[in-house]
């Protein structure tokens, strides 16, 4: 145990592990978005996709547990680092002007916290179905869980669209700093490729957020209907 | 009673250092652990000495007044460090470096010491490489060299424009290692204010903790001073604002002879002072004179902008006076010429302190790009400081004091006339004679600290066997009382009408006018008359706010100015007595008809070592300089 403690007492180790976990979560976010894009192919595609996942409970639950652990590690470590960082400067400057720090980088704690609340909300809302009592709970014609119907129902409601929109903004901002920052923390830099690495952060963030928002607004604007 | 014994080993020049190392007694490793050495100062000489002594097993206590040992002023040296490596195969050798240095010093330095310096120079480079100093390299991976300071061989090693910094960081890192090992105890933010001498030997120092203001005595088996030079006696110099004479001056008052105090080097190409507010002068590379032309308007009343003055109304004074060398005459010659022009009232810029250094011809002939490539960073620095674009209007330059060849007298073993008090680096007088060559100061500092002192101090420690005195020993208490009384006096100025800086400025002006680039008996006598009343007024009227038992920068400064006010007199005495012109010391009475310096080897081929006498004029002792191996010749540039 003391070895683990010693390991994580090092700020650089903590950051490396937090970065690895964060990049893992980013991978999940990409995968999640791509999977959900099947909604554009109609109810059969997305319901089928969902049912394939549900038909492999061991894989599904292992993945879910894994995600939980990775997310827990990431959150735990960054909270610990953030608390330590806050102690780094007990007296604040009276005047402070930033030169290089992006808005995203300065709001990581805020966007991260928002993201956490959003994910909990999202899990309760669409995965567990505990938030919206009026949501359809049925099966589709083939007897699979009607994910398509749930999505359509949810995003017709401007309240949920609003909440998800804010969630996606937080996700986008968080990722736009997190990805390139994670690469730097892992020591991945290269004279010729550094600009690419920097762009990769905002690029991937934009990709995920646009993908997710496209579903939400396609439903909201009636481009996809039941 | 001071007896100067230079302790030079007998035998052929090349063998002297080997002989000394062999004949020196050694301290056994077990005894080293019990021996404590105090090192004051952490510049090149101090840091290298402290780290090497720690490595040898001595208990070292190291002091500096900065917040960190890495900030010593060695850090500001830009050009490079000389070594007789002959990597370029251009005919360099130990003998040639030796000869260049002794000739550059205008035959006022000790042959044996200079030869040893040239011998050790090659080891310094190897040592610094091993410590990780990132010297410039060629594409093939070998060390790069450049030629520097007008010598005909390329023997200067460099780290961009930061050679001093990188060499110091090398020594600092070695020091860090010894601190980590527990061999060196580092005491930053402590200023040495006196030497403790007991039974004729230096046995410790009195320091002031600059944060708490607490005074304390520290005792040891030997004391090493590496406290740098005193160019700041002129108020305006290229030295850091903290540089001062206090440590060496207090040692002088305790019996260490001070050698050649008037040998101060003045660099021709500094950025001129912009006004009374000026706190320091910034040096520009001498290489600017390769392409720039120095001139002033012919008429002193000409107030037109420089570009509006036609060539016929410009006086290219160096080209006029020295047609053969033109703008490339050596430092001291150029500096004197500039000062003479300004004294005639023909200087340009604020206060008439400055001459033009004009690049318009070379820009016209070779294009602005060539100039930008060669001097871009210097032009940028110039613009940052003055706000002027030197591509469009001529630069203005003015000479500035930047190095002091004089210092505490030391023998071949770097020991002063107080046994047990060793002096290294710019703080001692050795090696540079009356004039220092470019890229030689770094070499000397590191030679002293890494390679010479650690040997020679061992011999002293092995032969003098006495335990350190207690910190409440009578001599320590007396030294503490001296320091206390002085601080008390500083805080008691009655009239309270002037700040220490204001006195310092006045003193600087006196010295600059009368004991600067060119000196004459009448001027020096005037200075000697002006200084005592100024000092008196200082003690009457100086305003020092706050108290002694707190962090008090003004008190530190006032103490240093007080010492400058006394030391300046010693400089003038030395300059007055030396009735010849040699190196940086130019006496107007002793020049040829063409205005060239006239050295007098018959009467003045000696080191002037001054002894302090309380309430009397300083007493002169002479260490004759015998030139067995080289023949003194005359420098000429016309």
């Amino acid at each position, binding site marked *: 145990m003391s070895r683990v403690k010693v390991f994580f007492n090092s700020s650089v180790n903590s950051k490396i592990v937090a970065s690895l976990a964060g990049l893992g979560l980013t991978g999940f976010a990409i995968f999640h978005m791509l999977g959900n894009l099947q909604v554009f192919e109609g109810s059969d595609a997305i319901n089928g996709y969902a049912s394939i996942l549900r038909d492999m409970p061991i894989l599904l639950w292992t993945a879910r547990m894994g995600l939980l652990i990775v997310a827990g590690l990431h959150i735990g470590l960054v909270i610990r680092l953030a608390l330590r960082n806050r102690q780094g400067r007990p007296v604040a400057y009276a005047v402070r002007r930033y030169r290089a720090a992006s808005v995203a980088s300065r709001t990581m704690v805020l966007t991260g916290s928002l993201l956490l609340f959003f994910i909990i909300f999202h899990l309760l809302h669409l995965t567990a179905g505990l938030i919206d009592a009026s949501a359809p709970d049925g099966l589709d014609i083939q007897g699979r869980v009607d994910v398509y119907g749930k999505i359509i129902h949810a995003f017709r409601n401007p309240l949920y669209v609003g909440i998800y929109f804010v969630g996606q903004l937080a996700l986008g901002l968080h990722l736009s700093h997190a990805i390139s920052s994670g690469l730097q923390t892992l020591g991945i*830099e290269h004279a010729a490729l550094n600009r690419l690495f920097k762009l990769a952060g905002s690029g991937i963030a934009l990709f995920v957020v646009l993908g997710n928002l496209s579903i939400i607004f396609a439903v909201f604007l009636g481009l996809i209907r039941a | 009673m001071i007896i100067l014994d230079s302790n030079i080993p007998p035998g052929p020049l090349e063998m002297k250092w080997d002989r000394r190392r062999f004949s020196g007694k050694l301290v056994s490793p077990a005894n080293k652990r019990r021996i404590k050495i105090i090192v004051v100062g952490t510049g090149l000489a101090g840091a290298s000495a402290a780290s090497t002594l720690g490595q040898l097993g001595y208990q070292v206590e190291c002091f500096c007044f900065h917040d960190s040992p890495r900030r010593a002023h060695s850090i500001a040296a830009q050009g490079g460090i000389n070594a007789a490596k002959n990597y370029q195969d251009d005919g360099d050798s130990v003998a040639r470096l030796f000869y260049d240095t002794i000739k550059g010093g205008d035959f006022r330095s000790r042959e044996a010491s200079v030869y040893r310096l040239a011998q050790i120079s090659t080891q310094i480079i190897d040592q610094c490489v091993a410590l990780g100093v990132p010297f410039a390299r060629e594409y093939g991976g070998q060390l790069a060299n450049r030629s520097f300071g007008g010598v005909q061989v390329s023997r200067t090693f460099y780290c*961009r424009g930061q050679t001093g910094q990188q060499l110091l960081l090398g020594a600092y890192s070695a020091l860090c290692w010894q601190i980590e090992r527990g061999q060196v105890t580092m005491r930053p933010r402590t200023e040495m204010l006196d030497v403790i001498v007991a039974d004729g030997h230096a046995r410790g120092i009195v320091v002031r903790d600059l944060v708490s203001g607490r005074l304390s005595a520290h005792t040891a088996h030997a004391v090493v001073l590496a406290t740098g030079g005193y160019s700041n006696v002129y108020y305006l110099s290229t030295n850091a604002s903290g540089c001062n004479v206090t440590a060496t001056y207090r040692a002088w008052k305790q019996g260490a002879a001070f050698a050649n105090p008037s040998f101060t080097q003045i660099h021709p190409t500094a950025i001129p002072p912009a006004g009374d507010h000026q706190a320091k002068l910034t040096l520009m590379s001498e290489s600017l004179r390769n392409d720039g032309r120095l001139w002033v308007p012919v008429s002193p009343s000409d107030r037109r902008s420089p570009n509006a003055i036609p060539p016929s109304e410009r006086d290219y004074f160096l080209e006029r006076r020295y047609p053969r060398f033109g703008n490339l005459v050596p430092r001291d010659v150029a500096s004197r010429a500039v000062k003479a022009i300004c004294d005639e009232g023909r200087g340009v810029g604020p206060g008439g302190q400055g001459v033009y250094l004009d690049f318009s011809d070379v820009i016209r002939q070779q294009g602005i790009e060539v100039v930008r490539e060669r001097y871009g960073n210097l032009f940028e620095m110039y613009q940052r400081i003055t706000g002027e674009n030197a591509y469009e209007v001529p630069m203005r330059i003015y000479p500035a004091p930047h190095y002091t060849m004089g210092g505490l007298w030391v023998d071949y073993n770097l020991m002063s006339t107080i046994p047990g008090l060793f002096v290294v680096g710019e703080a001692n007088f050795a090696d540079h004679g009356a004039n220092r060559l470019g890229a030689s100061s770094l070499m000397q500092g590191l030679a002293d600290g890494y390679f010479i002192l650690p040997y020679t101090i061992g011999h002293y420690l092995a032969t003098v066997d006495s335990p350190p005195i207690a910190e409440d020993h009578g001599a320590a208490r007396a030294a503490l009382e001296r320091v206390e009384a002085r601080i008390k006096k500083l805080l008691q100025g009655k009239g309270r009408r002037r700040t220490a800086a204001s006195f310092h400025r006045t003193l600087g002006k006196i010295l600059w006018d009368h004991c600067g680039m060119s000196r004459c008996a009448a001027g020096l006598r005037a200075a000697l008359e002006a200084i005592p009343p100024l000092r008196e007024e200082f003690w009457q009227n100086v305003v020092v706010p706050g108290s002694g038992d707190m962090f008090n920068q003004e008190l530190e400064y006032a103490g240093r100015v007080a010492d400058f006010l006394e030391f300046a007199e010693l400089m003038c005495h030395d300059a007055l007595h030396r009735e010849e012109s040699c190196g940086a010391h130019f006496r107007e009475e002793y020049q040829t008809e063409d205005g060239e310096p006239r050295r007098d080897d018959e009467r003045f081929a000696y080191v002037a070592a001054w002894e302090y006498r309380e309430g009397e004029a300083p007493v002169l002792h002479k260490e004759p300089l015998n030139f067995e191996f080289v023949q003194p010749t005359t420098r000429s540039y016309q």
Partner: protein
Amino acid sequence: MLVAGRKRRGGYRRIVKLTLRIWRQRGPNERGGLVTYQVDDISPDMSFLEMLDALNQQLIMAGEEPVAFEHDCREGICGSCSLVIDGVPHGPDRGVTTCQLYMRRFADGKTITIEPWRARAFPIVKDLVVDRRALDRIMQAGGYISVNTGGAVDGNTLLIGKEEAETAMDAASCIGCGACVAACKNASAMLFVAAKVAHLATLPQGKPERTRRVMAMVQAMDREGFGSCGNQYECEAVCPKNISVRFIALLNREYLRAGILGTKMPAQSDPPHGESY
């Protein structure tokens, strides 16, 4: 914006009036606060520190305590000066130290706020002077190559490519002022540590100790109470020597490498063979 006049030959002397808000604090454990001062008579050719000198001369003559601030070489190399000017360490110019900042940079009538470096690891000594010994202690933990004086091989025995040498020099140009810490949201010293680690890890001389060095220096950095790096790169933006944050990536790499490769097999103790030779 009205910028104080550029100097020209002849009538260049423009006087500037300024309001200064300066952090005053008598000692480490005392309460501090911003105090407002008026200075006039400021020439645009003054350096920022000369302007403070002028203020201090006024204060001394008025029987007040001058403002304590650190300075020495006044040419941007010793790393002593350390002022946060209007929220930016070393002030509005890039790639320079406070001492290289000139008053012509400031508009007439402006208010300037001057604060010390702020970090838990840099306790205030007085006013604008802070204690930066934490940086020295990091260096003592491993910022060196353990070689004895004497016996070094010829400098040319070690061939070091020009590019490696230049990279090492880029990193080594750190002057240890601590602006990186002052600028960092987390008061992290990563750029400082990275510069030294990169300097020595790039050169062959530094390789034998690279594992121990990076571990020890990071450990010392954490121990001193600096925060961790948030990769915001404020440090690089205020560094007077423009040291690149790429060296931080290099430090992370070195650290990872040390973590993976550095775990040694337990050292086998020599078989006991007494004191016989």
